[in-house]
């Protein structure tokens, strides 16, 4: 994976978020304050407008760090620091590499998930976006960077949040009543991995 592919991915992700922002906000209404789509859209539109400034020869780590900074400064709320941290950790794991090999990507995903867990004081199984990130990171570690497989595990992580009692974020107040709702952050994270897999499969 190189900077061009990263740009492709982020472009597609911004488009998918834009198309689905009302759905994301609606999901957030059931568990939170109904703005997750607005927040993600604001952040990824800002990312999108930064992309033309990124050159092919820039390191992936530089782009990932830029994305992290933009998300942290533009998104706010809970998802801003969480997504920001994920990109920051991925950037750190990719430092010094012009092309990211599978091994690097496995490590990057693992560290991203760990970063989210730390930042959110969260654990897998608590019905948040971490459930997608940790499922994908584990899958990558176990079976390698098989994009079809990773997309499936992202979806699995997302769908699993439906049956969970939410323990973090605004939904935590609901206790048992949070069961039956998919977590909005898990859905946006699924889109993130789905578009990543698309991009990578197209390049194969």
């Amino acid at each position, binding site marked *: 994976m190189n900077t061009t592919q990263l740009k492709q991915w982020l472009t597609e992700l911004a488009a998918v978020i834009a198309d689905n922002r*009302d759905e994301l*906000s*609606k999901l957030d*209404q*059931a*568990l*939170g*304050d*109904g*703005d997750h*789509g*607005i*927040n993600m859209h*604001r952040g990824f539109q800002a990312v999108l407008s930064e992309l033309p400034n990124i050159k092919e020869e820039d390191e992936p780590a530089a782009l990932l760090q830029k994305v992290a900074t933009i998300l*942290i*400064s*533009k*998104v*706010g*709320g*809970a*998802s*801003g*620091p*969480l997504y920001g941290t994920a990109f920051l950790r991925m950037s750190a794991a990719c430092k010094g590499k012009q092309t990211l090999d599978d091994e690097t990507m496995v490590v990057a995903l693992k560290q991203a998930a760990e970063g989210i867990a730390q*930042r*959110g004081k969260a654990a897998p199984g608590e019905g948040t976006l971490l459930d997608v990130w940790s499922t994908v990171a584990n899958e990558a570690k176990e079976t390698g960077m098989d994009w079809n497989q990773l997309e499936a595990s992202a979806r699995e992580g997302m769908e699993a949040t439906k049956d969970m009692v939410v323990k*973090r*974020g*605004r939904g*935590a*107040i*609901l206790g048992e*009543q949070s069961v039956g709702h998919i977590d909005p952050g898990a859905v946006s994270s699924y889109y993130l991995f789905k578009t990543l897999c698309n991009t990578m499969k197209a390049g194969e």
Partner: protein
Amino acid sequence: MKKLVNNPDVVVDEMIDGYLKAFPKLVEKVEGSGRALVAKQSLHGNGKVGIVIGGGSGHEPAFMGYIGRGMADGVAVGNIFASPPPQPIVEATEAVNQGNGVVYIYGNYAGDIMNFGMASDLADMEHDIKVESIIVRDDVASAPKREKEKRRGIAGEFFVTKVAGAASARGDDLSEVVRLTNKANESVRSMGVGLTPCALPQTGKPSFVLGENEMEIGLGHHGEPGVEKGPLQQADDVCDRLIDDILNDGDLKAGDDVAVLVNGLGSTTQMELFIMFRRVEQRLSEKQINIHRSYVGNYSTSMEMGGCSVTLMKVDEELKALIDAPAECPLYAQYE
């Protein structure tokens, strides 16, 4: 949803613009920042402990209206219902820092905790400013007592900010400001009821759905689900429910003094708030709990949401002095 706005994507920026132009003698933007505002009187270099507040917007007059003499020094303004990112928080921190430390006060929400947390790390590491954080958790509806650390912060943050601002204004040092602010935070309890939703300008969708004749007890300040939906009752009965839950949670007893805030969420009239206050006073006087000072009005809204909350803060002599201290902010002022 009908709103007097231009472009829904920039409502917060236009609001800030209007706010600064309305009160140029009292408040200003931190130079180079979009979302960090400070009270002009806080920039005098008198060595006071800085108080920085903030959170998502949509709660006006909270939080931006509460910077000024005797209240907070700086505020970071987030997007609607979204915690501000670390940057404006750090900017406000730097601007109000006078070398004797800064106190952050914010509500117990994952977003605020992460963003203010990152900001305090940055303030410490990059600017060598000592920051203490006080996380407000006054909403008794939002978790049982044994899980108090989960509780949301709602209108009670007004009292916590008032105490911190008054302590710092009279020159208390960081540890004293923190001690008093923590004491206020431990002593404050709120409980609310929602009647009608608000709508984010960008989605236009109601934040929750209730039947024609329904109310929701314990509804969150951003439309997060509450603890119980039921038919709308008479004001006194609604008030009793709120008061009972607050009293059952705390340790108020005959002879105690409290500060009371009956807070409107946006579209509930002051008439209704006074009818609610009337009942609060009846219930407290039955229990021989003395009302030291009262606040009735829109102190922390959820845009145009309908409903209100009741907040009680137990006050001893030192908290009374701080609650009674004068305050002069653009959107709130009181004399001693």
